[in-house]
């Protein structure tokens, strides 16, 4: 099952600011909903997001239940060198997903 999509330009010039877009498949159950019988539905959300560029962290986020389902993020980084940009999501109930994309920097 596709758990996440990471999109960024395949190539860039050194020093360019590139945009990274990331979507994760997750219902982001807030913990504030109840079933029709009044039983609370427990919280089940992504709580953390981190992005590394050749292993070094370039961006991090903390999510709360107010983040919409199938969380979407777009942020930027400076293209410094060729390599791998990896996004990882972690959350309740042991949720852990990593998705990467390669970039060639000239």
């Amino acid at each position: 099952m596709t758990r996440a999509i990471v999109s960024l330009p395949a190539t860039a010039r050194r020093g360019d600011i590139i945009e990274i877009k990331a979507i994760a498949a997750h219902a982001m159950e807030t913990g504030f909903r109840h079933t029709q019988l009044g039983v609370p539905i427990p919280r089940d959300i992504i709580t953390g997001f981190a992005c590394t560029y050749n292993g070094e962290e370039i961006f991090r986020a903390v999510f709360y239940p107010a983040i919409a389902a199938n969380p979407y993020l777009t942020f930027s980084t400076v293209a410094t060198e060729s390599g791998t940009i990896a996004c990882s999501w972690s959350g309740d109930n042991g949720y852990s997903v990593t998705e990467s994309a390669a970039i060639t920097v000239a």
Partner: protein
Amino acid sequence: MKRDDTKTSRREFLLAAGGIIGGITLKPATAAAAESTAAISVAPAATREAIAKVVGSARVTPGKVMLDLPALVENGNAVPLSVKVDSPMTQADHVRAIHVFTEKNPLPNVVSFFLGPRAGRASVATRIRLADTQTVLAVCELSDGSFWSGSVDVVVTLAACTEVL
């Protein structure tokens, strides 16, 4: 969504405001800045406490943070939010973090972004949930330790044709 029934009246907030976030600069230059100062000072206690956890006793100056949300939200389940901070993003002068809060959601915190000079520019976008018509606030922390804020008022309605009655 459950309402936070522990909120007290706004008048009581204004009186108590000084004790929680002391020294909010009251010299906003623009209407937007005035709005965010007012927004923090009249926000419910839970929101102000959440902001206090981030800024401690530091002063929060209105400005630099530009929050962009639609004025009339099409659906409160997924509201596009973008936040930009006016900053050169150099090693010497950059944005360390941006925190977003709401006043009427069951929890005040929405998201926190942690950036640094590698970002190139301080511009992040996501999609959030808004429970009701309200003010959304953003507080950013710069590398020099200063805090800046911005806010936007948003109208949220229910969808017309839903799944369950």
